[in-house]
């Protein structure tokens, strides 16, 4: 704050009684405003200290460049020189930093329209802008603020920025590295010399943070491989005269390889030391590794965290014995205070019940804080289909140092898929369909689906509802029903008129943190009526099963069937949306209830696993093996509604939906009783999402290889009929649901496939699984 200049009132210490006050030099600020800040009023005595306070007050407002108090007999004359206010603020020439962010930064410094223009602040601001640009390696930037007088003591402040070219790293030079060659070490670094590979990314732009990060990476690379005495002697950053190229030269002093002489734990042990020692990964005699030491410390911390010491700290302290290159490793264990949780608050959604998230928590209020339980809770919440991201923050409670509250912020994604379509398919004719799926019904976490479809081939209606918490411990209940009447079982198959309806009920019992058992039953009534083009296979099925009847000149049959459905599901995926770790395995058995018209059983095993391969590469494998057969003597074959089909986005991409498999007498797919399928996808790291949030981003690109087929019966199974394809694909998470694109190239296309024209290289589908 500028010290106010000397006031001009003569030095009479006792001053004078102010009769009235006159203001001079005011241009736009209202008198009432100035008077409201002036501590003196008519009738007060204006002595030395009162004058000084008045001047200080007026300066404090920041409105004035200059304040002079003088006396005219008994009138206090307040002379002020108003600082101009900024009527218009323009920023031009900035691409790297958006205008809005710049305005925000300036507003915080008090530089905005309507504010008073303060030279020093503008100067400070200019320096800050230079610093921000230099931090991004843009050394060619030029910032020139200019002030243009307007009327009535107002100014237009224009800040012109010439960003200039960004300096790119031309060369990284490592000196003194013998143990590991340049390419291996540079592989550890994020900064890269400019080249075609850095075209899309900004890895060839120098920045101090990346540099410090890289030095750290080099240090840990060496320290993880025994070089306990590794040091970085010097780092030089240099720039070319035209400021377009930058050069990094790092001089390392490797030192020798060290072996661990002995390992010891010291500190307090609320959990017996022997138990903690089990978590130490380092043994005497082996080569020293910083990574192993840190991992051991982490494991010990987690063990302490599990019994309430959430803020425990374990520090590995290596002592170097330089003569014989040995390291004595001591772990200093500081459990800190046992921490308790007072309250858990959820925020981020105003449409979902608090309990929908609270019931997923593994951490309780009024209990010791356990990091393991917190991580488990985050994963469980992220496995809800409507949750995008969960952040848990510990908030200390004043007055009790050993308790914290937990603020759980849940970032939700839209709850489901909604699709209304009216289309005209060559095959299906005019068709309308409505499909609504909501996986957070009423904000209670229930899942509901309604699908209505009607076209030339017939009508199809399906409804189901799942409550994942029918009981408080997570027993889920699913109720579903369907009705369809079609003249064709599936597109591309031989015509047969079917009419069927059914209901199913299923319960899911969790039997461990990751496993659950599903038990349920379903009933179904189906009618099949032959038509002119019905194939022999359908004809045989109709004739040999169920209660025969005739409608017009066509024979048909009616069959009732019921199934008992059992399944075991193990799911360790870490998220519902774009998981990047874990496996979901289902082993299911459906057996028909004997004594009705159809007796069969169907067994299926399918597994989807996600394998992280390091720096954001993920391998996804999705395999299925299913087989079913009739039992007893009056059912000859698996009913059509339980036969398997192959081809299409969920089995072998590159082939049209459900076109692979055994053909009937009309040379149309009839489905088989044995199916095998494997989809393998190599998911690429997300180059474009700058924040590197590959998983949380809205899209995933992958290259894939599919193989699979469907056989009529178990003894027909042979690998030479397997159809495979390779290609590239992308999943895009849209507000309407998950869109899946794939461009496939079948590798072993048969001539008959080509003749039947079932190759379909570009395919899109909505609503697939993640």
């Amino acid at each position, binding site marked *: 704050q500028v010290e106010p200049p000397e006031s001009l009132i003569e030095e009479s210490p006792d001053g004078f009684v102010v009769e009235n006050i006159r203001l001079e030099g005011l241009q736009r600020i209202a008198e009432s405003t100035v008077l409201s800040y002036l501590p003196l009023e008519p009738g007060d005595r204006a002595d030395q200290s009162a004058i000084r306070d008045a001047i200080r007050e007026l300066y404090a407002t920041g409105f004035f460049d200059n304040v002079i108090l003088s006396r005219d007999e008994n009138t206090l004359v307040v002379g002020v020189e108003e600082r101009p206010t900024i009527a218009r603020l323009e920023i031009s020439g900035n691409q790297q930093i958006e205008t809005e962010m710049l305005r925000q930064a300036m507003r915080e410094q008090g530089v905005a329209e309507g504010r008073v223009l303060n030279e020093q602040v503008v100067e400070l601001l200019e320096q800050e802008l230079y610093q921000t640009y230099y931090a991004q390696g843009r050394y060619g930037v030029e910032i020139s603020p200019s002030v243009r007088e307007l009327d009535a003591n107002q100014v237009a402040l224009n800040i012109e920025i010439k960003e200039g070219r960004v300096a790119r790293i031309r060369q990284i030079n490592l000196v003194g590295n013998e143990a590991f060659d340049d390419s291996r070490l540079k592989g550890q670094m994020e900064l890269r010399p400019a080249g075609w590979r850095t075209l899309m990314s900004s890895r060839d732009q120098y920045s101090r943070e990346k540099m410090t990060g890289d030095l750290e990476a080099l240090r840990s690379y060496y320290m993880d491989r025994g070089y306990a005495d590794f040091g970085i002697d010097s780092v030089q950053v240099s720039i070319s005269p035209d400021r377009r190229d930058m050069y990094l030269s790092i001089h390392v002093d490797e030192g020798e390889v060290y072996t661990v002489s002995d390992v010891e734990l010291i500190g307090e042990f*609320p959990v017996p030391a022997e138990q903690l020692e089990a978590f130490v990964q380092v043994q005497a005699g082996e080569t020293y590794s910083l990574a192993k030491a840190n991992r051991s410390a982490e494991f010990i911390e987690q063990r302490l965290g599990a*019994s*309430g010491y959430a803020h425990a700290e374990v520090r590995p302290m290596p002592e170097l014995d330089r003569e014989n290159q040995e390291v004595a490793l001591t772990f200093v264990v500081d459990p800190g*205070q*046992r921490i*308790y949780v007072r309250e858990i608050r959820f925020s981020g959604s105003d449409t979902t019940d608090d309990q929908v998230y609270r019931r997923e928590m*593994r951490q*309780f209020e*009024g*209990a*010791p804080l*356990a990091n393991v339980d917190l991580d488990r809770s985050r994963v469980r919440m992220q496995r809800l289909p409507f949750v995008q991201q969960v952040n848990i923050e510990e908030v200390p409670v004043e007055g*009790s140092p*050993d*308790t914290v509250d937990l603020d759980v912020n849940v970032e939700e994604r839209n709850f489901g898929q909604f699709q209304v379509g009216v289309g005209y398919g060559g095959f299906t004719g005019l068709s309308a369909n409505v499909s609504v799926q909501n996986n957070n019904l009423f904000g209670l976490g229930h899942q509901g689906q309604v699908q209505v479809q009607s076209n030339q081939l017939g009508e199809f209606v399906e409804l189901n509802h799942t409550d994942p918490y029918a*009981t408080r*411990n*997570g*027993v889920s209940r699913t109720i579903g029903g369907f009705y369809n009447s079609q003249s064709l079982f599936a597109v591309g198959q031989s015509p047969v008129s079917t009419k069927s309806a059914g209901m199913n009920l299923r319960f899911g*019992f*969790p*039997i*461990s*943190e990751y*496993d659950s058992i599903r038990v349920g039953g379903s009933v179904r009534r189906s009618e099949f009526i032959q038509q002119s083009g019905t194939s022999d296979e359908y004809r045989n099925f109709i004739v040999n099963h169920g209660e025969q009847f005739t409608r017009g000149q066509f024979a048909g049959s009616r069959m009732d069937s019921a199934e008992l459905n059992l399944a075991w599901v193990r799911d360790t995926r870490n998220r519902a949306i774009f998981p990047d770790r874990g496996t979901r395995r289902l082993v299911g058995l459906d057996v028909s209830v004997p004594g009705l018209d159809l007796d069969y059983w169907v067994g299926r095993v399918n597994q989807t696993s996600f394998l992280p391969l390091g720096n954001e590469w993920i391998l996804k494998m999705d395999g299925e093996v299913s087989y079913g057969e009739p039992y007893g003597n009056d059912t000859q074959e698996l009913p059509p509604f339980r036969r398997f089909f192959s081809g299409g986005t969920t089995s072998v991409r590159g082939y049209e939906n459900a076109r692979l498999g055994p053909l009937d007498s009309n040379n149309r797919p009839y489905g088989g009783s044995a199916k095998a399928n494997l989809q393998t996808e190599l998911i690429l790291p997300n180059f474009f999402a700058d924040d590197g949030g590959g998983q949380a981003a809205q899209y995933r690109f992958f290259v894939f290889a599919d193989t699979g087929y469907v056989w009529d019966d178990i003894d027909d199974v042979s690998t030479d009929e397997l159809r495979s394809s390779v290609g590239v694909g992308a999943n895009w998470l849209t507000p309407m649901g998950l869109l899946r694109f794939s461009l496939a190239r079948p590798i072993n296309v048969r001539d008959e496939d080509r003749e039947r024209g079932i190759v379909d290289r570009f395919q899109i589908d909505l609503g697939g699984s993640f």
Partner: protein
Amino acid sequence: CVYRQDIPQGNYLDDEDIEAVEVGMTQSQVRFLLGTPMLKTPFHGDRWLYHYYLDSRREHRSHRRDLTVFFDENGVVREIRDSADS
């Protein structure tokens, strides 16, 4: 046999903690040694309940240890009751 997660509740104290508390200590000394009591007693200001139980369906046991600290009218410990002794 439906799986139910373990439910820990209350202050997990072990022997040294409990032995450290004696009659005659002030409330702030007790709070320093044993921490904040998790089982609130709004209607019984004369006592602090350091109860702990872990209700674990998996191991079919509920590990339990209850300590109650009674204070006289000016907040000095007058009695300590430990469930382990009874």
